[in-house]
């Protein structure tokens, strides 16, 4: 039975993508209906797959001698992320019914959305590293196609290409890992590696570990690859929710958590992961404090929260990182969809032109504040519990100054959240804006997420046991929900973090009085607005590549004889290397 649900979880979105592509744009309502039906059915299949996660079932589809078996594993980590991808994905699709109303080429939009969701489900459910690489690239391709959905807008096209190039760079790291695994174990299945990392020589394991870190950093928009995510904001807002909450960026954190048992023994790997997470969290939080585009603030906050998760994996808190991933995907999907309702309503993303929208969109304001408080880590919202668990995991046997930095970032998070809410929903109402509240399909998508932001932390116990029972190699230590609550309440570190968060909230609320301080730190905020020079580095790389290509043009005279000469040279080099290394 589990096999059926597994195949349906991956297959239904892909089947839907095919059907919608073939049906085309004949009838707008029918296209919406098909997309919602297929995505909701896939979400249902993933939820039905959840109970099987404890049993750690393995499936293999024989694929002949070249590829080996295509293996799938149904364990806690996989089913949980597949459920997030399909359920949050289906809510984004439902939201799109209102948001994309009247758009051209809906078939292309929905086909790629469903292809994306299916690819992500496959990525987390396979235990074959080569197959995982294929799914990895499918998600990269779909994200490119969806970010550039408005392909007559040069900014959207540029953003899509940037996302594609940077995530491709990470894909090379994953491919190298897959090839090394195959070279040393004769199979692409990574389960043996997790159970016994010693089957691969230590030096090679280090290469694989850092290759995977690069892959994860590129995919999850971590330092130093974080620049593609804010530019991906040119996508339609439901796509931003899909990329940020349900699919794409979770893949990197998943990769690190999945391979933690193998790479934790590599010297320096955990420290590198922690540094990567902290720098992402800190820099992105500072950029979020000065950004004025509503979606960019949310994008930076995603980078920052993903930094928390990456840091948690490095600090050894695999459960805490996955728990925060769950909380984050719920509240970030909520924030993005609510922001989408605002943008859809008034037609701009610039927060300076908003203000006082709360009176006209009470429901949107309510759910946005729920999401914002969860993001800031206010007690009883899901973001509070998972963030506290991460901070606590960071205390065990890791340098104290790293912990201090993360607490500081938690405070900055509270600051930019309050700033964002105040700029959008409070203050003076702008006249001349025609404002209406979210449509009915939007409400259908927003309400479950708002309820989820308040309640998913209750799942900590069952979720922890699911992970601990099905991931023996990770040696997870988990407690029931009640024990977690007691632990968090009893820990003095919680109150320290809460104090910092409260200061952040207060500073955000009274930020007008802080203007002198802001001017004193003018250099920092200017650097943050310029994304700390990373954009300049990107531009430099692009220009250098173009110049190099122009210089290398000399080697392409377009003459047939010259090309044949190069082919013969390559053949000779190949023969020589075979003669030398062939034994």
């Amino acid at each position, binding site marked *: 039975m589990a096999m059926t649900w597994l195949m349906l979880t991956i297959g239904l979105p892909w089947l839907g993508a095919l059907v919608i592509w073939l049906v085309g744009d004949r009838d707008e309502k029918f296209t919406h209906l098909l997309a919602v039906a297929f995505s909701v059915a896939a979400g249902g299949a993933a939820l039905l797959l959840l109970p099987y996660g404890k049993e750690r079932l393995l499936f293999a589809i024989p694929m002949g001698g070249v590829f080996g078996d295509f293996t799938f594993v149904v364990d806690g980590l996989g089913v949980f992320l597949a459920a997030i991808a399909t359920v949050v994905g289906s809510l984004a699709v439902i939201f799109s019914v209102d948001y994309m109303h009247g758009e051209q080429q809906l078939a292309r939009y929905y086909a790629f959305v469903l292809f994306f969701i299916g690819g992500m489900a496959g990525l987390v459910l396979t235990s074959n590293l080569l197959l995982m690489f294929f799914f990895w690239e499918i998600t990269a391709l779909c994200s490119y196609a969806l970010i550039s959905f408005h392909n007559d807008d040069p900014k959207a096209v540029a953003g899509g290409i940037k996302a594609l190039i940077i995530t491709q760079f990470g894909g090379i790291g994953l491919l190298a890992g897959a090839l090394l695994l195959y070279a040393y174990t004769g199979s692409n299945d990574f389960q043996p590696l997790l159970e016994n990392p010693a089957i691969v020589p230590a030096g090679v394991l280090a290469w694989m570990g850092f290759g995977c870190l690069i892959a994860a950093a590129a995919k999850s928009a971590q330092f130093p690859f974080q620049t593609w995510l804010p530019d991906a904001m040119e996508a339609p807002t439901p796509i931003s929710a899909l990329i940020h909450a349900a699919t794409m960026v979770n893949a990197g954190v998943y990769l690190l958590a999945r391979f933690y048992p193998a790479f934790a023994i590599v010297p320096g790997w955990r420290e590198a992961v922690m540094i990567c997470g902290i720098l992402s969290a800190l820099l992105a939080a500072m950029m979020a404090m000065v950004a004025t585009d509503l979606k960019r603030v949310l994008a930076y906050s995603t980078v920052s929260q993903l930094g928390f998760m990456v840091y948690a994996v490095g600090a050894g808190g695999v459960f805490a990182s996955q728990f925060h991933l769950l909380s984050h995907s719920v509240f970030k999907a909520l924030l993005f969809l609510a922001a989408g309702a605002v943008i859809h309503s008034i037609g701009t993303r610039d927060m300076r032109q908003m203000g006082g929208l709360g009176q006209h969109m009470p429901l949107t304001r309510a759910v946005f504040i729920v999401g914002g408080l969860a993001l800031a880590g206010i007690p009883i919202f899901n973001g509070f519990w998972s963030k506290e668990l991460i901070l606590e995991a960071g205390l065990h046997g890791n340098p104290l100054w790293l912990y201090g930095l993360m607490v500081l970032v938690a405070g900055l998070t509270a600051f930019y959240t309050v700033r964002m809410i105040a700029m959008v929903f409070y203050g003076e109402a702008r006249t001349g804006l025609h404002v209406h509240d979210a449509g009915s399909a939007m409400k259908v998508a927003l309400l479950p997420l708002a309820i989820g932001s308040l309640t998913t932390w209750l799942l900590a116990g069952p979720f922890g046991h699911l992970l601990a029972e099905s991931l023996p190699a990770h040696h997870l230590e988990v407690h029931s929900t009640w024990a977690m609550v007691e632990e968090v309440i009893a820990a003095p570190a919680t109150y320290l973090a809460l104090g910092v968060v409260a200061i952040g909230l207060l500073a955000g609320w009274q930020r007008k009085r802080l203007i002198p301080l802001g001017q004193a730190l003018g250099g920092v905020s200017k650097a943050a607005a310029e994304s700390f020079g990373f954009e300049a580095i990107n531009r430099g790389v692009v220009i250098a590549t173009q110049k190099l290509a122009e210089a290398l043009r000399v080697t392409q005279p*377009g003459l047939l*004889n010259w090309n*044949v*000469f190069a082919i*013969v040279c390559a053949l000779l080099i190949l023969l020589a290397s075979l003669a030398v290394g062939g034994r």
Partner: protein
Amino acid sequence: MILSVPNVVILMVVGLLGVGIYALLTVRNLIKVVVALQIMVKGAMLALVLAGRLQGQENLGQSMALTVIVADTIVAVVGLALAVQVRRVVGSLDLRALTTLRR
């Protein structure tokens, strides 16, 4: 070196491939390029037949060679047709006249 049948055939294969590659490296006339390709393919065909014979799978080697003959004929036909078109459009069969393609 013993002058057995396989050795002689290998020499012929190497000779045909050598002539073909030398021609491809030096000639500038498009018709001659097509001829050079044909010579190389004949060498490859001979190698296929020989390989089949040496492995005891004569049928396989010869049927592969037949397949190559068919494919090779198509290459020759399309190549010559392209040559005719190039002559018509560019006014010359010289390869150097075709370097404008790189822009």
